[in-house]
């Protein structure tokens, strides 16, 4: 099978050579993690980036749970100015699209970050993080269809870049929110961000995380994320990027079969730097075994997404 077969066009000019991305917050700004094979990567999604630099939450910020981890980093990042001035020019040299994950407290924050990144060489798209459970504000946009549509629409008007919107699973009716975001002009949806969880240190009698609650990621959430993608992919007509607990080729295939156009690998990158390569190879092998010409043949249900490829 040629590599072309694994390419995916997410729309508005965002073409990926493979359907495997690294998820926000698990690859920083793409300059670290030298052990990961970039040649097989479809794109990098950066750490959540805000208008002004943020220190993030005090420690303890992470805790391991069964087959999962909680994090409450709190969007530690250098702010959009540094990203634009120092990082983007380096990305522009790369043969690999970089999508900037954008976070904020108010609609205006998102719009301003988007505006500053619009047309900047090296920035291939935006992923709107309206789903971070670890900061005082920001998550509320992902919890409500009207607010989600509002921030999506406002950012849409501020940028010509590919606009991916990242869903939070911590809701009653994900499909309704996904529809509202699609209608408001998103080019794609990524699903899902972390699930709000908590751990208590019984010996010290206090929550483990300084932030009390944190977001659960890793294999533990895979079945929940998969069902979210299955539901969203059946609802919207834009590409859905599956995220949540993917650790192997077989896991990634579950998401592609559920209707995802591509996948993001997060926590697994901390544990197994070979994961990206293994997943891409496994997808290639699956296509070969099944005689599939391209990714459009993967989903179990006829996709409602118009083929971009």
């Amino acid at each position, binding site marked *: 099978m040629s590599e072309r077969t694994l390419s995916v066009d997410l729309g508005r000019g965002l073409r990926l050579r493979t359907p495997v991305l690294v998820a926000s917050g698990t690859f920083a700004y793409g300059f*670290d993690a030298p*052990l990961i094979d970039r040649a097989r990567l479809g794109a990098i999604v950066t750490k959540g980036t805000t208008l002004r630099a943020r*220190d993030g939450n005090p420690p*303890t910020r992470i805790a*391991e749970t069964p087959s999962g981890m909680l994090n409450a*980093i709190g969007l*530690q990042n250098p702010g959009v100015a540094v990203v634009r001035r120092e990082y983007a020019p380096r990305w522009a040299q790369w043969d690999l699209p970089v999508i900037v994950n954008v976070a904020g407290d108010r609609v205006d924050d998102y719009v301003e970050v988007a505006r500053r990144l619009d047309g900047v060489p090296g920035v291939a798209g935006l992923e709107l993080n309206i789903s971070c459970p670890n900061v005082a504000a920001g998550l509320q946009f992902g919890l409500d269809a009207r607010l989600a549509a509002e921030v999506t629409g406002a950012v849409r008007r501020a940028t010509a870049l590919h606009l991916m919107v990242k869903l939070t699973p911590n809701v009653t009716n994900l499909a309704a929110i996904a529809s509202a975001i699609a209608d408001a002009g998103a080019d794609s949806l990524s699903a899902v961000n972390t699930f709000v969880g908590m751990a208590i240190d019984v010996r010290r009698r206090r929550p483990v995380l300084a932030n009390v609650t944190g977001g659960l990621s890793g294999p533990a959430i895979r079945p929940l994320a998969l069902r979210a993608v299955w539901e969203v992919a059946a609802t919207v007509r834009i590409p859905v990027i599956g995220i949540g607990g993917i650790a192997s080729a077989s896991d990634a295939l579950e998401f592609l079969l559920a209707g995802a156009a591509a996948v993001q690998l997060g*926590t697994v990158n*901390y544990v197994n730097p070979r994961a990206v390569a293994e997943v891409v190879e496994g997808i290639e092998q699956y296509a070969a075994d099944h005689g599939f010409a391209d990714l459009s043949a993967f989903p179990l249900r006829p996709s409602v997404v118009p083929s971009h490829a």
Partner: protein
Amino acid sequence: MSTAVLAQATVLAHTRPMEGGEELVLAHPEGARRARPGQFFQIGVDAKGTLLRRPYSIAAIDPGRGRLSFLFSVVGQGSAWLSGLSNGQAVDLIGPLGNGFVIDGGTSPVCVAGGLGVAVFPPLVDALVRAGRPPIVLQGARTGSRLLPDDRFAGASVQVATDDGSRGWRGSVVSLLRTVAAPSQEWFVCGPTPMLRAVIRLAGSVGVSLDRIQVALETPMGCGMGTCLGCVVPAAAGGYLLTCQEGPCLRADQVAWDRITDAFHE
């Protein structure tokens, strides 16, 4: 960090050099060549329910024979899994990671080890001895049987402290440090957070400036490679430092000691 490699290393020996401490000697030629005192590896553990790798300091570096070792105690599922390893089994390693100790500094080095924190010192002592600056090594433990044997610090002048007085000085290693402390010294410190705090306080009272103290820190780690931002310690300059990338060995004046939290130790 950029020197880290991913490798399968074979267990050559699994011993128990002291009570409460086990040592794994691994064949890892490339790792042994690259490793510097104070750096660590992320060890993959295949234990039920776990997800993340476990960070361990390099407790011995033998580039000649292509060997590394790790010294550990069993505190949970990951270390219990390590404890079950036997000769010939393979262990998945990423490293060496982080910044080790800077050893081109002043004169009169003193190494201060509390509990399992002693793990970082054999390679450091070795390097200092080879650099012609043999250190004083102060090692503290609850009781004599829990001390790493003195012969692991060849060429250094070793003194020990035990809480129960069963060997050496009776009392904490910090109270032992007080007996040898002098402003001209350079200190290398590794141990539980309360001990680090006590060393910092002592430094003030004996006139060792914080920029002449290096501490090897431990925090929970997600990645060990600078990508998760999970391993922070409060920085004296404001904001946070990444233990895995800017540390684990830091100059004491880089750390905001008043804001540091005891993630692990009371």
